[in-house]
């Protein structure tokens, strides 16, 4: 290989040396105006181009050198005062050269002057040149020769407005000439491949060929720049002829390059108007041609065109761009049986992008695209290709991005069907994309139908899908997913209670299937969503009284009970307990005593039966107390039962300190600082005393167990409770009781067995400071506090 390159370099150097050598003699002949010698040496110089040993890029170097020399020769030919031969004779004279390649280079050079001289119509000369160039059938040499022809003729085409324009229809001649040259060049180019014989296509050969592609493509560029090529001519002549060549050459490299070239060099408007013709070529391309990229580029261009101005949109409609594109994609997929799934899907993605950009208002088109994609996908037993997956995700994400609104996507009937074809992992990813889109745009999904569809879409997140490998789940991912679902539930909202209830029912139906791992995440969202509805109903209550209301808080609470019940399967008693309490509170607000009671009962049952962990118990009991405190719906009996229970549980906590705190918290159950709240000072005092006892016991236990008392924090906390109730006017709490307690604390603090503790000291100090402060305030409060002697 290395040797090969070295050899090539050597040959190139030899070629260059040869050119320089003969060019030198040619210059001498030119200087002495010796035409015969000039022709002889120029032909010899050009003979260096007859080499077959160089790869294209090195041959190009040779070509460029001769090109420069030919320019010098041309200016000599042009000046007939120097050689005295008419251009017509010159045209014959150069044809005497025995070797075809130098002969044709010279002929083209003289031909260029011949046209300029206008002694013959440009079209005749061009036609002759084009015809004679057939003499070189060697691909590389032929391509360069014809490229030279294209180069020298470029500014001499009998185009409209050109000085070489003849009588009538000469644009046609110009077009004909370029087309002909294009066809021949393409044939040569394609033949480079066939030359090697099938099955031996190496990368190097491919590379060499693609190095030459621009020589061929240049012709199309020239065509696009001919003034006279208007839409009519493009439609009737240029495009059909070019496509004919593209299709017939049956070469994948050429077809791909040329299709792309056509798309890039001609104006958008032409493409739009000739869409049918252009597209009809696509299914006829070789199966190995990357049609999807070609079509994608076309659609890109067209959609940019559409975006460029609103005025052109009617054109798109007029030519039915969408249906044509959609049609051809179907055909291409059909024609290219070997096309990987990823290709087909990519095509759909492109079409979808096009549709979204050009016809954003036509959801039916979007749906149609998805539909045809589904059709394609359903032929594939299982989609395993990662890239294909990616494309499907892109396909599904595109409408979301465009419309910034999942609601739109939800109306697409084929959307979920596409999703069905994703594997489980990707399906989840896609579901996340959907949810994120909703979050990002704060889209509100407001009808039950849409919710149904949406949950169908994201079912990968909602429940286990058969065959999913549960073990491989990443815990963190899973949490994130489920949190997203939980967030999503909050985005479902409708002002209409009836509809909202439906939504809730649907969500419930779906989430209940989620299994124990998911329920903790979703149930609370659902519960709060339902509670929100309850509160909404409360707001409406006045208006709907007396009517046959389908949605009542009662119904919702029944539903809620069932929902929370489902957590028992998890099990997640703490969460369930919190939810029950929330419901109870809501029921309280709705004045539904029985319901509230029932919720409390459930909460207590859970506490008793499920919550065994002492820490959890502490938290739970505080929650219960807190909630219960705020309840005002209960009658005396019910309330007594519940408070009794709560106090009882408080006293039975494991740690003394916890007991103490729970008990003094219970004191609040008997003193509601409301106008018509319960104010049972006696029982408050009982609670506090009991707490004090427990605190004492705790102190003693600590003494016994460790030989030193614990901090006095508990006492200070109780003191604070005392002060609170004292301030609130509880007659049972006297100033002497407070004084006694302070005394007790001081004793405890000073006792040897007590460990000094800065926190409780500070706590006490600020408590005392508060008393002082209240004293100084004066007024009723000040008076009250004045009675406390410190």
């Amino acid at each position, binding site marked *: 290989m290395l040797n090969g390159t070295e050899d090539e370099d050597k040959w190139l150097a030899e070629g260059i040396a040869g050119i320089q050598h003969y060019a030198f003699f040619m210059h001498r002949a030119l200087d002495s105006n010796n035409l015969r010698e000039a022709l002889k040496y120029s032909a010899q110089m050009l003979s260096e181009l*007859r080499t077959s040993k160089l790869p294209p890029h090195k041959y190009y170097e040779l070509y460029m050198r001769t090109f420069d020399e030919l320019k010098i020769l041309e200016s000599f030919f042009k000046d007939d005062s120097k050689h005295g031969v008419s251009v017509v004779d010159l045209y*014959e004279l150069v*044809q*005497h050269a*025995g*070797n*075809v*390649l130098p*002969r044709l280079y010279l002929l083209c050079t003289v031909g260029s002057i011949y046209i300029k001289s206008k002694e013959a119509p440009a079209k005749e000369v061009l036609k002759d040149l084009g*015809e*004679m160039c*057939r*003499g*070189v*059938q*060697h*691909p590389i*040499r*032929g391509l360069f020769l014809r490229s030279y022809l294209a180069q020298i003729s470029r500014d001499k085409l009998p185009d409209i407005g050109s000085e070489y324009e003849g009588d009538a229809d000469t644009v046609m001649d110009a077009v004909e000439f370029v087309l002909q040259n294009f066809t021949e060049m393409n*044939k040569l180019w394609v*033949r480079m491949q*066939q*030359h090697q014989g099938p099955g031996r296509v190496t990368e190097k050969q491919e590379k060499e060929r693609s190095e030459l592609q621009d020589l061929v493509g240049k012709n199309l560029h020239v065509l696009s720049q001919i003034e006279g090529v208007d839409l009519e001519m493009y439609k009737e002549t240029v495009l059909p002829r070019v496509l004919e060549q593209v299709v017939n050459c049956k070469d994948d490299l050429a077809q791909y390059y040329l299709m792309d070239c056509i798309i890039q060099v001609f104006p958008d408007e032409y493409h739009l108007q000739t869409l049918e013709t252009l597209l009809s070529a696509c299914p006829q391309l070789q199966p190995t041609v990357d049609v999807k990229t070609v079509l994608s580029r076309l659609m890109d261009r067209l959609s940019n065109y559409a975006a460029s101005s609103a005025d052109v949109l009617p054109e798109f409609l007029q030519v039915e761009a969408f249906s044509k594109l959609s049609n051809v994609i179907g055909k291409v997929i059909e024609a290219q049986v070997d096309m990987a799934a990823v290709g087909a899907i990519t095509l759909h993605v492109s079409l979808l992008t096009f549709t979204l950009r050009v016809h954003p208002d036509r959801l039916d088109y979007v749906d149609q695209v998805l539909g045809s994609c589904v059709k394609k996908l359903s032929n594939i037993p299982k989609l395993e290709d990662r890239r294909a997956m990616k494309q499907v995700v892109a396909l599904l994400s595109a409408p979301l991005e465009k419309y910034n609104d999942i609601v739109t996507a939800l109306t697409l009937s084929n959307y979920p069907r596409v999703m069905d074809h994703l594997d489980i992992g990707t399906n989840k990813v896609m579901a996340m994309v959907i949810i994120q889109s909703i979050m990002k745009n704060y889209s509100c999904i407001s009808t039950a139908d849409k919710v149904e569809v949406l949950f169908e879409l994201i079912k990968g997140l909602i429940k286990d899908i058969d065959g999913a490998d549960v073990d491989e789940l990443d815990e963190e991912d899973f949490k994130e997913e489920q949190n997203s679902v939980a967030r999503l539930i909050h985005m479902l909202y409708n002002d209409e209670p009836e509809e909202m209830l439906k939504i809730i029912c649907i969500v419930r139906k779906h989430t209940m299937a989620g299994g124990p791992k998911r329920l903790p995440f979703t149930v609370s969202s659902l519960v709060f969503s339902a509670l929100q509805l309850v509160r909404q109903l409360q707001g409406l209550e006045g208006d709907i009284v007396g009517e046959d209301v389908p949605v009542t808080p009662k119904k919702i609470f029944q539903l809620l009970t069932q929902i929370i019940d489902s957590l028992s399967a998890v099990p997640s008693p703490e969460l369930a307990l919190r939810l029950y309490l929330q419901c109870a509170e809501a029921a309280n607000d709705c004045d539904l005593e029985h319901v509230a009671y029932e919720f409390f009962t459930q909460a207590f049952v859970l506490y008793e039966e499920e919550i065994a962990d002492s820490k959890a118990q502490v938290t739970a009991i505080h929650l219960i107390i807190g909630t219960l405190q705020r309840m005002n719906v209960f009658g005396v009996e019910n309330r007594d039962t519940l408070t009794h229970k709560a106090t009882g549980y408080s006293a039975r906590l494991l740690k003394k300190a916890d007991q103490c705190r729970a008990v003094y918290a219970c004191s609040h159950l008997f003193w509601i600082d409301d106008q018509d709240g319960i104010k049972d000072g006696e029982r408050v005092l009982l609670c506090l005393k009991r707490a004090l006892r427990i605190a004492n016991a705790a102190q003693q236990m600590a003494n016994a167990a460790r030989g030193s008392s614990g901090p006095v924090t508990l006492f200070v906390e109780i003191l604070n409770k005392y002060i609170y109730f004292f301030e609130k006017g509880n007659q049972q709490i006297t100033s002497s009781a407070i004084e006694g307690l302070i005394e007790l604390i001081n004793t405890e603090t000073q006792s040897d067995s007590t460990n000094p503790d800065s926190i409780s000291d500070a706590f006490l100090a600020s408590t005392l400071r508060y008393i002082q402060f209240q004293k100084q305030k004066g007024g009723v409060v000040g008076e009250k506090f004045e009675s406390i002697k410190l």
Partner: protein
Amino acid sequence: MNFLLGAFKPACNILITFSDAKTRKQVPMKKESGQTVMVPLFQSQENIAGKISIEPLQGKKIEHNGVKVELLGQIEMYFDRGNFYDFTSLVRELDVPGELYERKTYPFEFSTVEMPYETYSGVNVRLRYVLKVTVSRNYGGSIVEYQDFMVRNYSPPPSIDNSIKMEVGIEDCLHIEFEYNKSKYHLKDVIIGKIYFLLVRIKIKNMDLEIRRRESTGSGANTHVETETLAKYELMDGAPVRGESIPIRLFLSPYELTPTHRNINNKFSVKYYLNLVLVDEEDRRYFKQQEITIYRLQDS
């Protein structure tokens, strides 16, 4: 030395001039010695007239048995060099036997001379026209002077001139169809044609069109054939594929061609052929030869 020179010098100078020498076209002619001289050009049926002046050397007298001028059309075969076969021989007696003392000029004229063959100089044969002046003497040998002149005969364009069209090939290997626009070309003509490839299964490297001249001399068992390739013109570079059609445009003017000569006086023939040669990558040659007739068209 002067004496010696004088001894070998002919006894007189003979000068042959044509009456229309000033206006007659002169053409170059290669002599046997290799040098090129300009000679007058005639065609058949023309009058060949002029003057012959004989000038004895200073102070010499020439005694002769008569003076004559002959117009000879001769064919010389190179295997029999020096032996001329005269196919045309015309004589004009210029003077009766007598003596010459001083310069004497004789007019002569051959009118409407039939000169059916053109002057030709080939590989093995030569056809020439010459004026031969002889001053016959009894002793010292006759004094002879030659004057070459060239004859070219023009033909009108042939009334029938079909194209040459032919399909040839090697089975399952190569099939081509070629066409030359005419079968008769004049010397400054252009051969236009094309080669159409019907089937190509070999890797062709290039294709040439050759112009070959076949000169055959003698007859019967002694026939000697000499073939020269006068032109080798590359038509195509590289390998074509099926369906390609390659143009031919070959200008004949740069080549030294003569008209076709058929059986000139039973002595020789000169025929021209177009030989289409295809060379494959292993340098095997595939060819097809076609005779064409070449004629001389009157310059307009």
